[in-house]
C-alpha cells in the first residue's frame, strides 16, 4: 500500500519507532505502518477525512497543541507520541463527552463485543461517569432496507453520511439538527434500499446502525469467522463467513484493495441462508430396482465408473463450483471424449459509483471466468443442446431449474453430483457434495483473479468436498490423478497443465488472490 511511487519519502518517529512513508500520508496511516493503532471513529481509509470525532488526537513534539492524526500529514523529523499523558488525557475527555448521551445499553446492543466505543472506553476511558443529568432520548428509526438507526447510540462520526454521499453517490443521509440535538437524518422520501447501502452497518463504529437481518441473533464473541469469497456474482468480493454452532449467521466484507476494498453489496451479504439449508443430499445413492438406495461411497463411485465405461460424459457444471472441481470435471470429460457446458443465471448490474470497477455483476456466479478458462462452453438458454443419444449426463451442482428436461431422456444414465437432489429427473447415481461454506477451494473472478475460500462449517452426513468426490471418480475412470486428494495438490496439477494458471499455487495466491495469465492488476 505504502509503495514509493516516485514521490518523496518522509522520515518520522512514532512512539519511538522510526518510519518512512510517502509525502502526504497522514500520521494515522503512518502509525499503522509502525504497528501503532491510533484510536479513531470518524476516520475510515475508504472515506474522505472529516476530522469530527477528535478521538485520534496525538501529541506532536514542537506543535503548539494536539493534532488530529487522521487529518494531519506527516512532516520530516516529526516526533509523535500516541500514548503520552497529554494525548491520553485528551482522548479520555473525548470519550467522556461521547458517552454523555450514549445509553450504555451494551447488554441489549447488537454490536457489543465488536464496538469501537466499547473497546476504546475499556482501553483508555474513565471507569465511571460524572454526568448525572437525564440523557437525551430519541426513538429508533427504520432507515429501510436492512438498516435500523438507533439514534441514542450514535456518536455522529458521519461515516455513514460520507459513504452515501461520496462512495454511493446518492446522498440520502445527513446530519440534521445541531448541537446536542444532532442526529443522522434521512431524506424524507428516500430509503436505504440502494444496492450497496447496507455497508453503512459495517462502517458504523458503534451500535447506531444495525442490521435487521442479524438483530438479536448472536453475540459477536460467539461467532467463528472464516475467510471466504462471496458467491453472489462474478466480482468475487472477499468476505468473512461468521458461523455459530455450524450455522452461517452473517456475512461481512473482508477488505481487499484489488477487488472490493471494504464493501459487500446487500444482495451478496444477505444471500447466505442457502448454505444452511436442511434438505441436503447426505448419503451417496444408486438406483437399485428402480429405487434410490443409500450405499457406500466406494460402491457409488464404482457404479458411476461402470455406467460411464465406453460412453461420452456430457457434463453440465455449475459456475459455482471451484476451479479444482471444474478441473477434475474437465479431466473426466477429456478421458471420455465428452463435452462440458455450463450456464449462469444473470441479473441487472449494480455498480458502486465511488469505487473503480466494483459492481454487482450481471453473471450471478463466482467462477464463470474459471469455467471458461477450463474449457467449459457457456450456454445459458439450453445447456442440454449438445447431449447426444447414449451419453452419460453428469449434473455437477447444477439443478437445471426452469429448463425443459425432456432432452435429458436421451442420456443413457444421469449422474447427479450435487448438494441436493434435482427435481424432475431420475438419476442413476447421486453423489452428495459439500457446498462452498463446507469446503476449501478457489474461484476465478471476472478480472482473472484466482481467490481462495476456506471451510467455515462441516458438511452434513457423508457429503464430501466436491474435489474429493471428483478425484475418486476420475481415478475410477482411469484418469491419472495421483496425489489429488487435497485442494492444494489439485491446484498444483491444475497450474501445471493449464497455461492460464501457470505459476499460481496456494502459497502464492494467499488470501488476496493471484492473477491468471493475461489478466492485468490495473483492471481493478
Amino acid at each position, binding site marked *: 500500500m505504502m509503495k514509493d511511487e516516485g514521490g518523496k519519502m518522509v522520515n518520522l518517529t512514532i512512539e519511538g519507532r522510526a518510519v518512512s512513508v510517502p509525502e502526504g500520508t497522514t500520521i494515522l496511516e503512518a502509525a499503522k505502518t509502525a504497528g501503532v493503532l491510533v484510536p479513531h471513529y470518524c476516520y475510515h481509509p475508504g472515506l474522505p477525512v472529516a476530522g469530527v470525532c477528535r478521538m485520534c488526537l496525538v501529541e506532536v513534539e514542537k506543535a503548539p497543541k494536539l493534532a488530529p492524526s487522521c487529518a494531519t500529514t506527516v512532516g520530516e523529523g516529526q516526533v509523535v507520541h500516541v500514548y503520552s499523558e497529554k494525548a491520553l488525557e485528551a482522548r479520555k475527555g473525548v470519550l467522556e463527552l461521547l458517552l454523555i448521551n450514549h445509553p450504555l445499553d451494551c447488554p441489549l446492543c447488537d454490536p457489543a463485543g465488536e464496538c469501537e466505543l466499547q473497546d476504546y472506553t475499556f482501553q483508555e476511558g474513565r471507569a465511571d461517569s460524572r454526568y448525572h443529568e437525564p440523557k437525551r432520548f430519541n426513538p429508533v428509526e427504520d432507515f429501510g432496507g436492512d438498516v435500523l438507526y438507533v439514534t441514542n447510540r450514535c456518536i455522529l462520526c458521519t461515516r455513514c453520511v460520507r459513504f452515501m454521499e461520496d462512495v454511493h453517490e446518492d446522498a440520502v443521509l445527513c446530519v440534521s439538527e445541531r448541537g446536542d440535538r444532532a442526529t443522522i437524518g434521512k431524506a424524507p422520501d428516500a430509503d436505504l434500499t440502494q444496492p450497496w447501502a447496507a455497508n453503512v452497518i459495517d462502517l458504523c463504529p458503534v451500535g447506531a446502525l444495525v442490521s435487521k437481518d442479524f438483530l*438479536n*441473533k448472536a453475540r459477536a464473541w*460467539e461467532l467463528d469467522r472464516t475467510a471466504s469469497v462471496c458467491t453472489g456474482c462474478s466480482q468475487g468480493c472477499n468476505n468473512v463467513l461468521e458461523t455459530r454452532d455450524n450455522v452461517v449467521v452473517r456475512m461481512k466484507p473482508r477488505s481487499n484493495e484489488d477487488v472490493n476494498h471494504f464493501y459487500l453489496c446487500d444482495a451478496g451479504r444477505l444471500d447466505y441462508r442457502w448454505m444452511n439449508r436442511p434438505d441436503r443430499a447426505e448419503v451417496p445413492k444408486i438406483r437399485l430396482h428402480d429405487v434410490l438406495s443409500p450405499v457406500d461411497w466406494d460402491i457409488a463411485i464404482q457404479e458411476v465408473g461402470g455406467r460411464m465405461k465406453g460412453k461420452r460424459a456430457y457434463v453440465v457444471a455449475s459456475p459455482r463450483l471451484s476451479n479444482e472441481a471444474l478441473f477434475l470435471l474437465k479431466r473426466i470429460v477429456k478421458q471420455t471424449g465428452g463435452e462440458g457446458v455450463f450456464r449462469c443465471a444473470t441479473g441487472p448490474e449494480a455498480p458502486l459509483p465511488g469505487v473503480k470497477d466494483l459492481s454487482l455483476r450481471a453473471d450471478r456466479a463466482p467462477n464463470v471466468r474459471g469455467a471458461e478458462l477450463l474449457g467449459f462452453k457457456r450456454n445459458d438458454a439450453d445447456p442440454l443442446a449438445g447431449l447426444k443419444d447414449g451419453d452419460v449426463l453428469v449434473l455437477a451442482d447444477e439443478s437445471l431449474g426452469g429448463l425443459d428436461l425432456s432432452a435429458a431422456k436421451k442420456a443413457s444414465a444421469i449422474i447427479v453430483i450435487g448438494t441436493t437432489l434435482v427435481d424432475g429427473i431420475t438419476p442413476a447415481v447421486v453423489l452428495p457434495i459439500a457446498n462452498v461454506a463446507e469446503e476449501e477451494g478457489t474461484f476465478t473472478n471476472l478480472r482473472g483473479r484466482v481467490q481462495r475460500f476456506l471451510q467455515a462449517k462441516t458438511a452434513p452426513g457423508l457429503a464430501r468436498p466436491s474435489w474429493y468426490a471428483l478425484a475418486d471418480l476420475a481415478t475410477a475412470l482411469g484418469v491419472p490423478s495421483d496425489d489429488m486428494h487435497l485442494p492444494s495438490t489439485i491446484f498444483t496439477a491444475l497450474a501445471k497443465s493449464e497455461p492460464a494458471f501457470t505459476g499460481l499455487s496456494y502459497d502464492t495466491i494467499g488470501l488476496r488472490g493471484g492473477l491468471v495469465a493475461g489478466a492485468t492488476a490495473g483492471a481493478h
Partner: protein
Amino acid sequence: MAITVKVMERPLGEVSYVRATLKGLALTLKHLVDPHRVTIQYPEEKWDLSPRWRGTHRMLTTEDGSAKCVACGLCPTVCPANCIKLVPGEDEAGNRYPLVFEIDEFRCIFCGYCQEVCPEEAIHMGRHYENAEFNRARFVYDLERLTAQTHPVSELWDPAHPRGE
C-alpha cells in the same frame, strides 16, 4: 540366641485404662445433664444459611412478571462450567429477550459468576439447598422454573458497604 527385651517400668496410674474410661463416662454424663446439641432436627428444623450462600439459581422478574433477562449473553460466556444455554429472541415490541434459558444444575459449580456478571440483576444464586428430584432431567432448570422459584437470593456483596453498589 535369645533376644533381650527391655521392659519399661511405668507407673500404674499411667498405664491403667480405668482412669480413661471414667474420664470418658464423665464427659458423656456431662452432655446428658447439660445438652450441647449439634444435630439439627431436619426437616422440622432448617439450617440458618449465610447471606452469601450460593445455591440453585433464581431468575428475578419485572413488575409484569416476565424475566428481567435481556439475553445479553454474558452469563453463558462467563460460566466456567458451560452450564447455561441461551438463545436470544425478539418479542412483539422488538425487545430482546431469552427464547431459551436453561441452567443445568448438575453441571453448575455454583461459583456465582453469572450473578456477578449480570448487568440487569436478573439471574441470582439462591439461598436454598433442598433440590432433590425424582429424575435427572428435572435438574435442567428452564426459564419458567427459574422465574417461579421463591426462595431468597444470595447477596454476593454487602449492599450496605460503600463499595457494594
